[in-house]
């Protein structure tokens, strides 16, 4: 099992190598299977990594032959191990789903590029996740923004290019801010390795109070832009709406999450929560999160386009996660991490469903989705599971998230924020349930609809069925995962 320590690096390498091989291959089918098999291999390696971490505890992995401050390091703890399983397995499901939808949404000549970009994207996200070197993280961030932008514009329609440009500009703005934040940290600590920066910061924190505020502020805004924190989310709706559905699923469930995980790393490992608590940043994050929870939902309520609605719902859910981080206590962080997982499952399923629906109905309008519960019963059945999870009905993953948030709020003695939580989950109900109602009920809606007439094949439905199963599993027995999260939080 000692070899398992090499797996994280191996995962990144496998993904990069396989994705760079794809343009060389001649046949689209070969590309598809190479992509899926490499990601599946990474799932296996991630699981083994988690097993290794459970046996030996968190470990630092030296890349190359140089010792820490000079050489690069990966740090793999529980958090990284869990998240890499989540990232790879969701990516595998989305890739599987894209086999059936890519031909419809992407031009034939671009399909190979699409899978190349997906592989690069996943590799760079995992790079952000594993890396213990903050500059390395920056490089991976840039790489991931190019790849993420790539999977938006791969559809090569007018709107896609527009959304892609918007995304690229704001995203490079964000990376610029992050790099500036790194520059400030480097100027006061002289280190880029996260562990060493923290050691130095503890020594000099009183000298450079303002520098710390500026630096953390830059990280907050920079990563906030990239992960669509509320007032700087403006790129997200366009990008998610116009991108191919499998790309939207990747963007919403994984890309945003990687930046948030980096933010968590910066708060808890680079700065350390004690230092962060002396700065006023967390309060702002808390408020922004809360505002996002409400306004994201309200904006979602106003949308007429299915994918745009789901995109705004993402803004609200990202609000939850930042809210949890902003609470600044262990329970809040745990709730945020749990929500990262449950939201990733739900949102990827929702976007894939939206893709299926749009493919069959040929319309994105919510008002056109009447009676599809009869025509696509399985797809809509999974939609119901996701919607109930979003609303927070017990026995679905979303309930556990909400419950954990509620506990965290009470633990931090800010009981009034429970009102925000309640209001937000009600708003979720307001925009998800009407879709279900119109899909299944109502005389006019269900007239002349033929049962199962527009359903996709079972193979195409497999990913969303697995996701639905995972949502219910997380809803019923969240204990194991919560324990793991508790462990990962305690040795961040």
């Amino acid at each position: 099992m000692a070899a398992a320590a090499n797996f994280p690096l191996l995962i990144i390498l496998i993904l990069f190598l396989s994705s760079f091989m794809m343009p060389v291959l001649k046949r689209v089918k070969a590309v598809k299977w190479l992509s899926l098999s490499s990601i599946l291999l990474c799932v296996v390696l991630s699981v083994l990594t988690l097993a290794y971490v459970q046996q030996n505890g968190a470990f630092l992995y030296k890349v190359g032959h140089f010792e820490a401050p000079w050489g690069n390091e990966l740090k793999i703890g529980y958090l990284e191990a869990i998240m890499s399983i989540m990232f790879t397995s969701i990516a595998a499901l989305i890739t599987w789903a894209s086999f059936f939808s890519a031909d419809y949404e992407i031009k034939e000549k671009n399909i190979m590029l699409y899978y190349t970009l997906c592989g690069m994207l996943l590799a760079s996200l995992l790079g952000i996740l594993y890396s213990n070197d903050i500059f390395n993280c920056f490089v991976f961030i840039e790489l991931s923004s190019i790849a993420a932008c790539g999977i938006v514009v791969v559809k090569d329609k007018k709107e896609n290019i527009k959304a892609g440009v918007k995304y690229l500009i704001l995203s490079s703005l964000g990376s610029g801010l992050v790099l500036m934040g790194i520059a400030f940290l480097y100027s006061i600590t002289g280190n880029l390795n996260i562990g060493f920066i923290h050691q130095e910061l503890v020594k000099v924190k009183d000298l450079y109070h303002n520098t710390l505020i500026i630096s953390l502020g830059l990280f907050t805004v920079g990563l906030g832009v990239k992960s669509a924190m509320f007032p700087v989310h403006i790129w997200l709706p366009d990008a998610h709406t116009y991108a191919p559905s499998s790309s939207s699923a990747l963007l919403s469930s994984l890309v945003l999450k990687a930046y948030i995980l980096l933010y968590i790393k910066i708060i808890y490992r680079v700065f350390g929560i004690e230092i962060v608590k002396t700065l006023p940043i967390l309060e702002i994050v808390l408020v922004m999160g809360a505002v996002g929870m409400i306004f994201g939902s309200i904006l979602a309520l106003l949308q007429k386009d299915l994918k745009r609605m789901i995109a705004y719902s993402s803004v609200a859910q990202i609000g939850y996660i930042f809210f949890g981080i902003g609470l600044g206590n262990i329970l809040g962080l745990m709730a945020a991490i749990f929500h990262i997982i449950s939201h990733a499952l739900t949102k990827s399923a929702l976007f894939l469903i939206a893709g299926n629906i749009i493919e069959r109905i040929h319309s994105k309008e919510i008002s056109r989705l009447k009676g599809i519960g009869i025509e696509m019963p399985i797809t809509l059945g999974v939609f119901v599971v996701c919607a109930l999870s979003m609303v927070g009905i017990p026995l679905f993953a979303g309930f556990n998230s909400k419950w954990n948030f509620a506990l965290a709020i009470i633990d931090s003695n800010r009981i009034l924020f429970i009102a925000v939580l309640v209001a937000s989950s009600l708003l979720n109900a307001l925009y998800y349930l009407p879709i279900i109602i119109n899909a299944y009920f109502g005389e006019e809606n269900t007239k002349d609809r033929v049962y199962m007439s527009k359903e996709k094949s079972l193979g195409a439905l497999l990913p969303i069925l697995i996701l639905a199963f995972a949502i219910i599993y997380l809803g019923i027995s969240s204990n194991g995962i919560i324990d793991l999260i508790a462990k990962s939080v305690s040795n961040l």
Partner: protein
Amino acid sequence: MERLITNYYETASIILFGIGFMTLLIHNNLIKKIIGMNIMDTSIFLFFIAKGYISAKEAPIIRAPYMGVEGYINPVPTALMLTGIVVAVSVTAFALALTIKIYEKYGTIELNEILEKGGD
């Protein structure tokens, strides 16, 4: 004021950063936006390299008389910025490529006009 002058590298880079940031935000022309992005990145490179530079010391290339650890500047930021430049160049290239695409599809590179034309 005096502190600003003594740390003139930092002052300059922050001013450049501001210029780049605003250019990126307020201009409608995509090319100008990309230029702004580059100014912003360059300012950060300047900042970083200034951090590594120690006046009156040599570049860390060891020639005949070895001057000891104290004799050279810090090479790490310079090395990092090489990476940074590569990254910035690739993003710029990508952005320019997209701009060409935009011009093909919309016939303009003014962002406000593009947004007006909307997604029909």
